């Protein structure tokens, strides 16, 4: 994936701000001077003002910050649910900041695996069908789809819950279904937004152990959280405050 011999996209000739370096073509994620501005009535609110960082393949990162710090906005941008008002975002050598809705949908489908705080499973669908969903939109044939989805459920130790619906599963099991769904397409990044926010302490630890294992298997993981003990599991912590990176440190 991060093969450095791949043609690197052209570097911008005019740099918007002097301290901003050109994007790092070898990194999986490369954000340069990202701004996100909302208009509230006549007033402009800057949720992010000038965020830059790189994530190499295989890293385990926590993004931490109090509510209102802009970390949710940053997560939406990393996950390609939204586009920046200004700045460049390169994901797996693709310039995501220039894409339209349908192109973004494809990036979300192929490159990003989402894990949400509230699981966001389809209530009426079985675990298997929930996990298959990204493959359906990825255009994968049904027999291959079943195979891949079962494999992903096996990877999260839910091989025996294939035909269960979300309301027949515990919170931890639901989150594991969601993780299987996030993994099934072998995305470039696993993006988790407060993945333990709706779980008890014991189950939270189980889920975090699972993330640790997945990282050990070579997945790039970004966890957005406001809990320090969850963030402490990561290898690198990026602290956001008032729309800016306050601290970016390797802790392991």
């Amino acid at each position, binding site marked *: 994936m991060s093969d450095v011999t791949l043609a690197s996209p052209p570097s911008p000739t005019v740099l918007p701000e002097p301290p901003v370096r050109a994007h790092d073509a070898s990194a999986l994620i490369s954000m340069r001077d990202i701004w*996100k*501005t*909302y*208009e*509230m009535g006549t007033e*402009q*609110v800057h*949720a992010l003002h000038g965020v830059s960082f790189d994530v190499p393949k295989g890293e385990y990162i926590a993004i931490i910050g109090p*509510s*209102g710090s*802009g970390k*949710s*906005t940053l997560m*939406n941008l990393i*996950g390609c*649910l*939204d*586009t*920046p*008002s200004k700045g460049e975002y390169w994901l797996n050598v693709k310039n995501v*900041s*220039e*894409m*339209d*809705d*349908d*192109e973004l*949908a*494809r990036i*979300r*489908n*192929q490159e990003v695996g*989402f894990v*949400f705080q509230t699981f*966001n*499973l*389809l209530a*009426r*669908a079985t675990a298997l069908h929930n996990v298959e*969903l*990204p493959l*359906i*939109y*990825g*255009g*994968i*044939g*049904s027999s291959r*789809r079943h195979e891949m989805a079962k494999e992903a459920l096996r990877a999260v130790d839910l091989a025996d819950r294939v035909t269960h619906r979300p309301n027949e599963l515990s919170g931890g099991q639901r989150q594991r279904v969601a993780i299987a*769904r996030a993994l099934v397409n072998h995305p470039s990044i696993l993006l988790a937004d407060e993945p333990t926010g709706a779980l008890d302490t014991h189950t939270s630890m189980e889920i975090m152990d699972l993330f640790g294992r997945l990282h050990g298997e070579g997945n790039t993981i970004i966890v957005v959280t406001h809990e320090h003990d969850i963030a402490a599991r990561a290898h690198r912590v990026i602290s956001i405050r008032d729309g800016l990176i306050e601290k970016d440190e390797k802790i392991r």
Partner: protein
Amino acid sequence: MQRLGYNETPRQSFASKGSAVLARLRRTFRFLRVAALWEAFLVALGSLRANKLRTSLTLMGIVVGVAAVIAVVTIIKGLDKTVATTFSSQGSTVFTVSKRPRVITSREDFIKFNKRKDVVLDDAEAIFRACTWCWRAGVAANTAEPVKHKDQKSENVNVRGITPSAMFDIDAVNIDAGRFWTDNEGATAHEICVVGTDIVQNLFGGIAPDRTLGQNVSIAGRPYQIVGVLQAQGKIFGASRDNLIYIPYSTYQKNFGAHSSLVVFVKTASADQLEEAEDQVRTIMRNRRGKTFGDDSDEGFTLETSDVFIDLYGKATSNIYIVTYLVAGVSLFVGGIVVMNIMLVSVTERTKEIGIRKAIGARRKDILTQFLIEAVTVAAVGGAIGVLTGFGLAYVISFLIGFPLLVSVASVLLGVGMSSFVGVISGLWPAWRAARLHPIEALRAE
């Protein structure tokens, strides 16, 4: 940040890159359509099953609309068919020459036609002699008379004087018992007759037709011997076509007077000779009335086919039909609005689901397809039920009034096609709204 609206500042667009990316996407997504369509269909079925009350209400809307259209179309077709077969029983190879048209629509016309000369036997004979395209020809005159047999009596029986016996052929009546009279008998003013089945029924108490042969009926006080009984022709709109008696024209002339104007009937061997025969007869009659070609004044006679009745029926009913079709169409329109309303609710209810689907890679097209398929599925199923209900309704009505039920493949296709069309139209806006939802806002919905 959570409460902020999503009026983001405009993003820069890079059109140059777009087409290349699009082409690559198309290659990658070649298989997507079938899988996503099937997924959309399953999702639609699941959602319809999960909301049974909502689904049945929607179905009802469509069923009523389609059933109304189908019933109306079927009933009108049945009526048209009845009228067409009845009035053209003589077939499309027969036309008539008469003093006045069978249908007169104004008083002025009535006065004009009454000033014409009667069509008499001489006119008929001239036509018989000179018309080479005419295959069969005859004259007929009608009167309504009381008919008696012993103490049984029927008022207002249609007495039809005809000559020659080829007129039976032109009238397309068939003998059930006995025989038609010969031309020799017909020429000698014998008191003989061929009767319709109502006469047997009403005056002879419904005995076997052959037992009436040789017996007498009294028409306007004079006895006539029955030589034949006709096959039943049935009813049209409740009026019997079997309450009639044929007598030879010579006898008719003798007993009911020669003063009334005749109707000359001409039959051609095939329908494509009709026009030529009409031209010949028109020329003959113009000569006899002293008119030249291009004379604008009244021709002095009327030449018409049995189509005039069908035309008149068409004119009389077309406005009624249009109104009926409109009313049925309105109920289908209402059905469409019901579908749209329910689909809007469905989209609002499933905003979260749409958000999830978008987050994991559903494109606008996928969401649009999903909701469109849902709308079309309800509408098509409703349409199918509506078609059956409509035919059921038409069957009951046709049974009560008494006309044939015409079930055509075309009307089935019409019903299902229309309802699917309504489904697409009324599903389009809700589906478009769903497809346009921003994933973040949709995910935030509960």
